[in-house]
Protein backbone atom coordinates (compact mmCIF):
# COMPACT_ATOMS: atom_id res chain seq x y z
CA UNK A 1 0.00 0.00 0.00
CA UNK A 2 2.50 2.64 -1.07
CA UNK A 3 -0.54 4.58 -2.33
CA UNK A 4 -0.80 5.99 1.18
CA UNK A 5 2.70 7.51 0.93
CA UNK A 6 1.79 8.83 -2.51
CA UNK A 7 -1.46 10.36 -1.24
CA UNK A 8 0.40 12.11 1.60
CA UNK A 9 2.95 13.41 -0.89
CA UNK A 10 0.18 14.75 -3.18
CA UNK A 11 -1.53 16.50 -0.29
CA UNK A 12 1.78 18.01 0.77
CA UNK A 13 2.48 19.41 -2.69
CA UNK A 14 -1.09 20.68 -3.03
CA UNK A 15 -1.03 22.46 0.35
CA UNK A 16 2.26 24.15 -0.43
CA UNK A 17 1.05 25.25 -3.85
CA UNK A 18 -2.29 26.45 -2.44
CA UNK A 19 -0.51 28.52 0.20
CA UNK A 20 1.71 30.07 -2.47
CA UNK A 21 -1.39 31.27 -4.33
CA UNK A 22 -3.38 32.26 -1.26
CA UNK A 23 -6.12 29.72 -1.96
CA UNK A 24 -8.97 29.26 0.53
CA UNK A 25 -10.16 26.02 -1.02
CA UNK A 26 -8.71 23.43 -3.38
CA UNK A 27 -11.53 22.21 -5.61
CA UNK A 28 -9.75 19.61 -7.62
CA UNK A 29 -6.39 17.93 -8.19
CA UNK A 30 -5.80 16.55 -11.66
CA UNK A 31 -3.39 13.64 -11.59
CA UNK A 32 -1.87 11.67 -14.48
CA UNK A 33 -1.05 8.04 -13.73
CA UNK A 34 0.58 5.78 -16.29
CA UNK A 35 -0.25 2.08 -16.45
CA UNK A 36 3.42 1.28 -15.77
CA UNK A 37 3.63 3.45 -12.65
CA UNK A 38 2.67 0.62 -10.30
CA UNK A 39 -0.08 2.73 -8.75
CA UNK A 40 -3.59 1.42 -8.21
CA UNK A 41 -6.22 4.03 -8.90
CA UNK A 42 -8.80 2.81 -6.39
CA UNK A 43 -6.33 2.41 -3.60
CA UNK A 44 -4.91 5.88 -4.26
CA UNK A 45 -8.37 7.49 -4.31
CA UNK A 46 -9.22 5.75 -1.04
CA UNK A 47 -5.94 6.82 0.57
CA UNK A 48 -6.34 10.40 -0.58
CA UNK A 49 -9.82 10.64 0.94
CA UNK A 50 -8.42 9.20 4.17
CA UNK A 51 -5.62 11.77 4.49
CA UNK A 52 -7.18 14.92 3.07
CA UNK A 53 -8.58 15.59 6.53
CA UNK A 54 -10.91 18.16 7.96
CA UNK A 55 -9.08 21.31 6.99
CA UNK A 56 -11.24 23.76 5.01
CA UNK A 57 -8.57 23.89 2.35
CA UNK A 58 -8.79 20.25 1.27
CA UNK A 59 -11.88 18.80 2.96
CA UNK A 60 -13.85 18.72 -0.31
CA UNK A 61 -10.95 18.33 -2.73
CA UNK A 62 -11.65 15.93 -5.57
CA UNK A 63 -8.75 13.82 -6.76
CA UNK A 64 -9.30 13.27 -10.45
CA UNK A 65 -7.11 10.51 -11.89
CA UNK A 66 -6.40 10.21 -15.60
CA UNK A 67 -4.99 6.78 -16.48
CA UNK A 68 -2.50 6.77 -19.33
CA UNK A 69 -2.03 3.56 -21.33
CA UNK A 70 1.40 2.40 -22.46
CA UNK A 71 2.45 4.01 -25.72
CA UNK A 72 5.57 3.01 -27.60
CA UNK A 73 7.54 4.02 -30.64
CA UNK A 74 8.90 1.10 -32.67
CA UNK A 75 12.20 2.03 -34.29
CA UNK A 76 12.24 -0.51 -37.17
CA UNK A 77 8.57 0.11 -38.01
CA UNK A 78 9.00 3.85 -37.40
CA UNK A 79 5.51 3.98 -35.92
CA UNK A 80 3.67 4.78 -32.72
CA UNK A 81 1.64 2.04 -31.06
CA UNK A 82 -0.39 1.31 -27.98
CA UNK A 83 1.49 -1.30 -25.93
CA UNK A 84 -0.24 -4.65 -25.47
CA UNK A 85 -1.08 -4.40 -21.77
CA UNK A 86 2.06 -3.29 -20.02
CA UNK A 87 4.41 -4.56 -22.63
CA UNK A 88 6.75 -2.51 -24.74
CA UNK A 89 6.72 -5.10 -27.53
CA UNK A 90 5.77 -3.72 -30.96
CA UNK A 91 2.36 -5.16 -31.92
CA UNK A 92 3.28 -4.95 -35.62
CA UNK A 93 6.72 -6.60 -35.85
CA UNK A 94 6.74 -8.14 -32.33
CA UNK A 95 10.17 -6.62 -31.84
CA UNK A 96 11.68 -5.11 -28.70
CA UNK A 97 13.54 -2.28 -30.37
CA UNK A 98 11.11 0.25 -28.97
CA UNK A 99 11.03 3.44 -26.94
CA UNK A 100 8.48 4.12 -24.26
CA UNK A 101 6.52 7.30 -25.03
CA UNK A 102 3.95 7.11 -22.26
CA UNK A 103 3.04 4.92 -19.30
CA UNK A 104 5.35 5.69 -16.38
CA UNK A 105 3.77 9.01 -15.35
CA UNK A 106 2.85 9.82 -11.79
CA UNK A 107 2.39 13.57 -11.79
CA UNK A 108 0.11 16.38 -10.76
CA UNK A 109 -1.01 18.10 -13.92
CA UNK A 110 -2.76 21.03 -12.25
CA UNK A 111 -4.91 22.06 -9.31
CA UNK A 112 -8.11 24.11 -9.26
CA UNK A 113 -8.38 26.58 -6.40
CA UNK A 114 -10.69 29.28 -5.06
Amino acid at each position, binding site marked *: *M*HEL*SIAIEILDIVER*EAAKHGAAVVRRVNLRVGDL*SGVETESLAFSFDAVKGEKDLTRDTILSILRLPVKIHCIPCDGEFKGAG*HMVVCPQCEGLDTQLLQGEE*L*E*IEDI*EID
Partner: protein
Amino acid sequence: MSEKITLEQKVLSRNDLLAADLRRLFASEKVAIMNMVSSPGSGKTSLLEKTLGSLSQNLSIGVIEGDIQTDNDAVRIAKTGVPVHQIQTGGACHLEAEMVRKALSHFRLEELDLLIIENVGNLVCPSAFDLGEGLRVVVISTTEGDDKPLKYPAMFRSAHVMVINKIDLLPYTDFDVQKVVRNAMSLNPEIHILKTSCRTGEGLDEWSGFVMEFVQSNNE
Protein backbone atom coordinates in the same frame (compact mmCIF):
# COMPACT_ATOMS: atom_id res chain seq x y z
CA MET B 1 -14.54 31.56 -9.90
CA SER B 2 -11.98 28.77 -9.75
CA GLU B 3 -8.45 29.31 -10.87
CA LYS B 4 -6.40 26.59 -12.49
CA ILE B 5 -2.73 26.33 -11.56
CA THR B 6 -0.54 24.23 -13.79
CA LEU B 7 2.01 22.18 -11.86
CA GLU B 8 3.16 19.33 -14.11
CA GLN B 9 5.06 18.08 -11.11
CA LYS B 10 6.09 14.51 -10.36
CA VAL B 11 4.40 13.35 -7.18
CA LEU B 12 7.55 11.71 -5.89
CA SER B 13 9.85 14.56 -6.87
CA ARG B 14 10.92 15.05 -3.25
CA ASN B 15 12.11 11.43 -3.03
CA ASP B 16 13.73 11.73 -6.47
CA LEU B 17 15.65 14.85 -5.44
CA LEU B 18 16.84 13.21 -2.24
CA ALA B 19 17.87 10.11 -4.19
CA ALA B 20 19.84 12.32 -6.56
CA ASP B 21 21.62 13.88 -3.54
CA LEU B 22 22.43 10.39 -2.24
CA ARG B 23 23.74 9.36 -5.64
CA ARG B 24 26.14 12.32 -5.63
CA LEU B 25 27.28 11.45 -2.11
CA PHE B 26 27.84 7.79 -3.05
CA ALA B 27 29.81 8.85 -6.12
CA SER B 28 32.06 11.14 -4.10
CA GLU B 29 32.66 8.41 -1.51
CA LYS B 30 33.20 5.85 -4.28
CA VAL B 31 30.70 3.39 -2.87
CA ALA B 32 28.52 1.25 -5.14
CA ILE B 33 24.87 0.83 -4.13
CA MET B 34 22.76 -2.23 -4.90
CA ASN B 35 19.03 -2.33 -4.11
CA MET B 36 17.59 -5.87 -3.90
CA VAL B 37 13.84 -6.40 -4.22
CA SER B 38 11.68 -9.52 -4.30
CA SER B 39 8.51 -11.16 -3.09
CA PRO B 40 8.65 -12.74 0.35
CA GLY B 41 10.13 -16.24 0.15
CA SER B 42 12.20 -15.76 -2.99
CA GLY B 43 15.39 -16.63 -1.12
CA LYS B 44 16.75 -13.10 -1.40
CA THR B 45 18.34 -13.19 2.06
CA SER B 46 20.01 -16.55 1.32
CA LEU B 47 21.36 -15.13 -1.92
CA LEU B 48 22.63 -12.11 -0.01
CA GLU B 49 24.38 -14.36 2.54
CA LYS B 50 26.11 -16.26 -0.28
CA THR B 51 27.09 -13.00 -1.95
CA LEU B 52 28.63 -11.69 1.25
CA GLY B 53 30.40 -15.02 1.79
CA SER B 54 32.18 -14.84 -1.52
CA LEU B 55 32.74 -11.08 -1.88
CA SER B 56 33.53 -9.86 1.63
CA GLN B 57 37.07 -11.26 1.34
CA ASN B 58 37.87 -8.75 -1.37
CA LEU B 59 35.40 -5.96 -0.78
CA SER B 60 34.36 -3.87 2.18
CA ILE B 61 30.57 -4.31 2.26
CA GLY B 62 27.72 -2.91 4.35
CA VAL B 63 24.08 -4.00 4.40
CA ILE B 64 20.91 -2.04 5.08
CA GLU B 65 18.05 -4.38 5.98
CA GLY B 66 14.53 -3.27 5.18
CA ASP B 67 12.58 -6.23 6.51
CA ILE B 68 9.70 -4.72 8.45
CA GLN B 69 8.32 -7.77 10.22
CA THR B 70 11.28 -8.95 12.24
CA ASP B 71 15.00 -8.52 12.61
CA ASN B 72 15.60 -12.16 11.61
CA ASP B 73 17.26 -11.18 8.35
CA ALA B 74 19.50 -8.61 10.02
CA VAL B 75 20.57 -11.25 12.55
CA ARG B 76 21.37 -13.70 9.73
CA ILE B 77 23.42 -11.07 7.90
CA ALA B 78 25.24 -9.97 11.07
CA LYS B 79 26.51 -13.57 11.43
CA THR B 80 28.49 -13.13 8.22
CA GLY B 81 30.53 -10.43 9.99
CA VAL B 82 29.43 -7.66 7.64
CA PRO B 83 28.18 -4.42 9.23
CA VAL B 84 24.41 -4.36 9.01
CA HIS B 85 21.79 -1.83 10.01
CA GLN B 86 18.10 -2.59 10.18
CA ILE B 87 15.75 0.18 9.12
CA GLN B 88 12.66 0.54 11.29
CA THR B 89 10.02 1.36 8.70
CA GLY B 90 7.17 1.39 11.18
CA GLY B 91 5.23 -1.09 9.07
CA ALA B 92 5.81 0.63 5.74
CA CYS B 93 5.77 -1.57 2.65
CA HIS B 94 8.84 -0.03 1.02
CA LEU B 95 11.97 1.98 1.72
CA GLU B 96 12.31 5.63 0.78
CA ALA B 97 15.41 7.70 0.11
CA GLU B 98 14.99 9.55 3.42
CA MET B 99 15.16 6.26 5.36
CA VAL B 100 18.37 5.34 3.57
CA ARG B 101 19.86 8.77 4.28
CA LYS B 102 19.17 8.35 7.99
CA ALA B 103 20.59 4.82 8.00
CA LEU B 104 23.90 6.05 6.56
CA SER B 105 25.00 7.41 9.95
CA HIS B 106 25.49 3.76 10.99
CA PHE B 107 28.19 3.19 8.36
CA ARG B 108 31.60 4.56 7.57
CA LEU B 109 30.88 5.27 3.91
CA GLU B 110 34.46 6.24 3.11
CA GLU B 111 35.54 2.70 4.04
CA LEU B 112 32.89 0.86 2.01
CA ASP B 113 33.17 -0.43 -1.56
CA LEU B 114 29.62 -1.72 -1.71
CA LEU B 115 26.43 -0.97 0.21
CA ILE B 116 23.64 -3.46 -0.32
CA ILE B 117 20.06 -2.49 0.51
CA GLU B 118 17.74 -5.43 1.07
CA ASN B 119 14.36 -3.87 0.40
CA VAL B 120 11.06 -4.92 1.93
CA GLY B 121 9.69 -8.19 0.50
CA ASN B 122 7.17 -6.75 -1.92
CA LEU B 123 7.19 -6.36 -5.69
CA VAL B 124 4.78 -3.43 -5.91
CA CYS B 125 5.57 -0.67 -3.49
CA PRO B 126 9.38 -0.36 -3.67
CA SER B 127 9.33 0.13 -7.44
CA ALA B 128 8.44 3.83 -7.38
CA PHE B 129 11.08 4.82 -4.82
CA ASP B 130 14.56 5.58 -6.07
CA LEU B 131 17.04 5.03 -3.23
CA GLY B 132 20.03 6.43 -5.09
CA GLU B 133 21.17 2.95 -6.10
CA GLY B 134 23.32 2.19 -9.12
CA LEU B 135 21.97 -1.33 -9.52
CA ARG B 136 18.45 -2.58 -8.90
CA VAL B 137 18.15 -6.33 -8.65
CA VAL B 138 14.84 -8.16 -8.66
CA VAL B 139 14.99 -11.71 -7.32
CA ILE B 140 12.31 -14.23 -8.22
CA SER B 141 12.30 -17.96 -7.60
CA THR B 142 11.15 -20.97 -9.58
CA THR B 143 8.52 -21.64 -6.91
CA GLU B 144 6.70 -18.48 -7.97
CA GLY B 145 4.70 -17.94 -11.16
CA ASP B 146 6.53 -17.29 -14.43
CA ASP B 147 3.98 -14.51 -15.07
CA LYS B 148 5.41 -12.47 -12.17
CA PRO B 149 6.90 -9.81 -14.46
CA LEU B 150 3.53 -9.18 -16.09
CA LYS B 151 1.85 -8.92 -12.69
CA TYR B 152 4.44 -6.45 -11.38
CA PRO B 153 5.46 -4.52 -14.50
CA ALA B 154 6.74 -1.41 -12.74
CA MET B 155 9.28 -3.40 -10.76
CA PHE B 156 10.61 -5.44 -13.68
CA ARG B 157 10.66 -2.31 -15.79
CA SER B 158 12.85 -0.46 -13.30
CA ALA B 159 15.25 -3.32 -12.47
CA HIS B 160 18.65 -3.70 -14.13
CA VAL B 161 18.95 -7.38 -13.31
CA MET B 162 16.57 -10.28 -12.75
CA VAL B 163 17.94 -13.18 -10.74
CA ILE B 164 16.00 -16.43 -11.10
CA ASN B 165 16.72 -18.17 -7.81
CA LYS B 166 16.08 -21.76 -6.66
CA ILE B 167 16.94 -22.94 -10.15
CA ASP B 168 17.65 -26.43 -8.68
CA LEU B 169 13.91 -26.82 -7.99
CA LEU B 170 13.04 -26.37 -11.66
CA PRO B 171 12.29 -30.08 -12.30
CA TYR B 172 9.69 -30.04 -9.52
CA THR B 173 7.74 -26.98 -10.67
CA ASP B 174 5.91 -25.92 -13.82
CA PHE B 175 7.96 -22.73 -13.92
CA ASP B 176 8.99 -21.97 -17.51
CA VAL B 177 12.35 -20.16 -17.62
CA GLN B 178 12.00 -19.13 -21.26
CA LYS B 179 8.59 -17.70 -20.55
CA VAL B 180 9.74 -15.63 -17.57
CA VAL B 181 12.68 -14.33 -19.61
CA ARG B 182 10.35 -13.39 -22.44
CA ASN B 183 7.90 -11.74 -20.04
CA ALA B 184 10.65 -9.72 -18.35
CA MET B 185 12.15 -8.64 -21.66
CA SER B 186 8.78 -7.60 -23.04
CA LEU B 187 8.76 -4.98 -20.29
CA ASN B 188 12.44 -4.23 -20.14
CA PRO B 189 14.43 -5.32 -23.20
CA GLU B 190 17.73 -4.34 -21.53
CA ILE B 191 17.27 -6.40 -18.37
CA HIS B 192 20.19 -8.67 -17.51
CA ILE B 193 19.26 -12.21 -16.46
CA LEU B 194 21.07 -14.60 -14.12
CA LYS B 195 20.10 -17.97 -12.67
CA THR B 196 21.16 -19.14 -9.23
CA SER B 197 20.69 -21.86 -6.66
CA CYS B 198 21.84 -21.19 -3.11
CA ARG B 199 21.49 -24.90 -2.33
CA THR B 200 23.62 -26.39 -5.13
CA GLY B 201 25.71 -23.28 -5.75
CA GLU B 202 24.76 -23.19 -9.43
CA GLY B 203 25.23 -19.75 -10.96
CA LEU B 204 26.62 -18.18 -7.79
CA ASP B 205 30.06 -17.55 -9.30
CA GLU B 206 28.49 -15.75 -12.26
CA TRP B 207 26.33 -13.73 -9.89
CA SER B 208 29.27 -12.76 -7.65
CA GLY B 209 31.31 -11.93 -10.73
CA PHE B 210 28.50 -9.71 -11.96
CA VAL B 211 28.33 -7.82 -8.66
CA MET B 212 32.14 -7.52 -8.59
CA GLU B 213 32.09 -6.03 -12.07
CA PHE B 214 29.42 -3.57 -11.01
CA VAL B 215 31.56 -2.43 -8.06
CA GLN B 216 34.65 -2.11 -10.25
CA SER B 217 32.86 -0.16 -12.98
CA ASN B 218 31.48 2.10 -10.26
CA ASN B 219 34.99 3.00 -9.15
CA GLU B 220 36.29 3.89 -12.58
